[in-house]
């Protein structure tokens, strides 16, 4: 054991929490809760499960239930209209603010990834990329209508324009193998388009999603705009995809064996669906670099509205 700093001596703190010495300070563990409507409830089901951490120890992860899901949809629906009504510039600034706060929590995000088995360098790279990805999305809201919409030169005396509008409440099955960068890449698209989100976090590596929830809670993202549920995906998915008040599903992280049921459920209420492109696998590097800078996660949940008006008196 090395020499303690003066301040550490004054506070009577052990130098490291990993120390095996008897005088060591006990770590205050985080209870990883759900994030619904801006609050951090435990699952109403009372369930939690242990996730083994790579460096030893376990994390208790809330086991979200069908009822938690329903609650998330309820608050998301309330949040949808005011979020869509924010100006595009403000939505961009709010997303940028999320990136700022993620930067401040970079160490915790790195720890989360290392706890789920990432190497130090991979974790550092993923956190940096995730923050940059959020900045990439922060620039999109006020450019979508220029890139995707426009005026239409119809062959009659009318002024006709087409604008993208958000679809509404979108549920996303977050990528499993890219628990932070993948999550940010898919969630960023939903928010940039003006939609609100219900996220089913990575099942094997949920901690970055929990930290992101804690980041969002102190950001300017209004309560209910993002709701994050940790749960057994196979258990919740059949209910999630049939919830008639969800307007779209980002199934990027949906395991192949659940895809059929997920798409059938979405079809029953004509919900929009985005999915992993053909040939792309749910891998840790799936969102690296330009591969992750795609607007398909935005465009899948935009409705193009065309407005006609006569020209003349």
């Amino acid at each position, binding site marked *: 054991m090395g020499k303690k700093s003066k301040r550490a001596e004054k506070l009577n703190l052990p130098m490291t929490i990993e120390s095996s010495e008897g005088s060591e300070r006990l770590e205050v563990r985080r209870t990883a809760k759900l994030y619904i409507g801006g609050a951090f409830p435990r699952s109403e089901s009372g369930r939690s499960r242990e996730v083994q951490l790579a460096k030893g120890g376990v994390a208790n992860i809330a086991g979200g239930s069908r009822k938690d899901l329903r609650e998330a949809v309820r608050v998301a629906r309330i949040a949808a209209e005011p979020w869509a009504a924010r100006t595009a510039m403000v939505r961009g600034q709010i997303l940028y603010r999320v990136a700022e706060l993620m930067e401040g929590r970079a160490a915790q995000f790195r720890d989360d990834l290392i706890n789920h088995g990432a190497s130090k360098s991979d974790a550092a790279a993923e956190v940096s990329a995730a923050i940059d990805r959020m900045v990439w999305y922060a620039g999109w809201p006020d450019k979508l209508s220029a890139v995707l919409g426009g005026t*239409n030169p119809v062959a009659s005396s009318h002024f006709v324009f087409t604008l993208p509008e958000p679809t509404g409440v979108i549920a996303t099955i977050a990528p499993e193998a890219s628990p932070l960068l993948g999550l940010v890449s898919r969630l960023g698209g939903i928010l940039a388009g003006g939609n609100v989100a219900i996220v089913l976090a990575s099942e094997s590596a949920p901690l970055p999603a929990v930290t992101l929830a804690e980041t969002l809670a102190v950001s300017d993202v209004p309560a209910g705009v993002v709701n994050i549920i940790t749960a057994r995906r196979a258990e919740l998915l059949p209910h999630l995809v049939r919830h008639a008040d969800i307007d779209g599903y980002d199934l990027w992280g949906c395991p192949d064996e659940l*895809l059929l049921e997920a*798409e059938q459920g*979405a079809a029953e209420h004509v919900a929009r669906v985005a999915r992993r492109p*053909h040939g792309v696998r749910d891998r840790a590097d799936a969102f690296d670099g330009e591969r992750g800078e795609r607007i398909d996660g935005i465009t899948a949940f935009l*409705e*193009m*509205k065309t407005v006609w008006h006569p020209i003349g008196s």
Partner: protein
Amino acid sequence: MPSDQSPKGAALRRTTARAASVTTPAPAATVAPASSGLAGSSPWAYAPAPESREIVTIRQRYGLFIDGKERAPSGGEVTITYNPATEEPLAEIAKGTPADADRAIEAADRAYRKVWSKLHPRERAKYLYRISRILQERSREFAVTETMDSGKPIRESRDVDVPLAAAHFWYYAGWADKLEYAVPGRRPEAHGVVGQVIPWNFPLLMLAWKIAPALAAGNTVVLKPASTTPLTALLFADVCRQAELPDGVVNIVTGPGSTGMSIVTDPRVAKVAFTGSTSVGVTIAKGIAGQGKGLTLELGGKAANIVFEDAALDQAVEGVVNGIFFNQGEVCCAGSRLLVQESIAEEFLARLRDRMSMLRIGDPMDKNTDIGAINSKAQMETIGELVASGVSEGAQIWQPACDLPTRGWFFRPTLFTNVAQSHRIAREEIFGPVLATITFRTVAEAIEKANNTAYGLSAGIWTEKGSRILQVASAIKAGVVWANTFNRFDPTAPFGGYKESGYGREGGMQGLHAYLRSS
């Protein structure tokens, strides 16, 4: 209308079982002249002005169009397509089977791999320009055929359906060699074989909306027309021949809905486009779930046409009439719910009734006809059933006094007032000339009521106040909003729905996106 049917029509009628059994057989299939509440002696009465059908030769029997050739259906069975205005059989249509669908997909797949994907995009463009030109050249033939097969007034098929179909091919032709401008920063690629299923209300126009962007994007097509209106699609096969389009690039398979399902669920079909009812759209979406196919759906609607108290009333009356009686109301984006502000409701409804009394219902081939025949007996029954529900649920019905032809499937234009939002006629798509009136007091109430539907295809706003137009247009959950106009279409303007009216757009650059995958 010619009073003598062609002998082959008569022969067909002897040998085939009639789908309809409404009327006793008449010696000659004449359609009564279009009639309206105006007495024949009125100075406003019109003399009949029938379009000639001489330009059209309808063959006794049509096969499938597969790999550039006409083929008999593998099952050997046929169905009959009828003229809804006379209930006369027009032709025998091949009843395509799953084996025929398979053969068509094989041809489309081969054409995609060996020919179409290897062609320079500029050459693809030129084929589409050719098709557009031939459609323009043969426009009267198409219009007359469309009206005979679908029952829609010749005025509409001549002035709307056919010119718009040609315009769609023209518009998308120009995209074929400019695809990289449609997906900035990405590489556009075709899907391969596209499966398309279209409805009976705009048979040729829906074909154009589907085939033009698909081919421009570099895909090949297997298309199934509606079983009651296959003739213009089969005539289009002849256009493909004239344009010397490579074999297999466009394949047309007629047949029942199950044949359509065989097409869309086939693993070689990479992208599916469907226009039709929401229930069939859901069946298709479920049927292809998990297959990784692209899908666009253009489904039902229950559009609100909102008339505010400051609207130019006579223009609004015209717009409301056009909104619900265009194509007999058999339009997915029809303005079937009239939302009128309470302060002007009485005055507005009086003018609307006056205007409805002047509508001319009858022979679709008459150039003065406003409302033609309902497409099929089955659709007549659906409309009748929903109208009966409106009466039994307590809404007040009004119909103009007019004589309907004694033969053919005609439905009187119908106005309901005192309609509650819970009534079936206010919630369900009727797909007929039936308008349900609901009143409102405030702008907020109008928006609330307009959005109170599972659908979200279109809406109309009538007011002289520009800022209110933009406020209401942005609050309405619908893909197309017409302000002080209604039922306008253009190849440059995207069309498609919110909510249960489907997803994806047709028309414009946005309509091209569905037919491309970009990497």
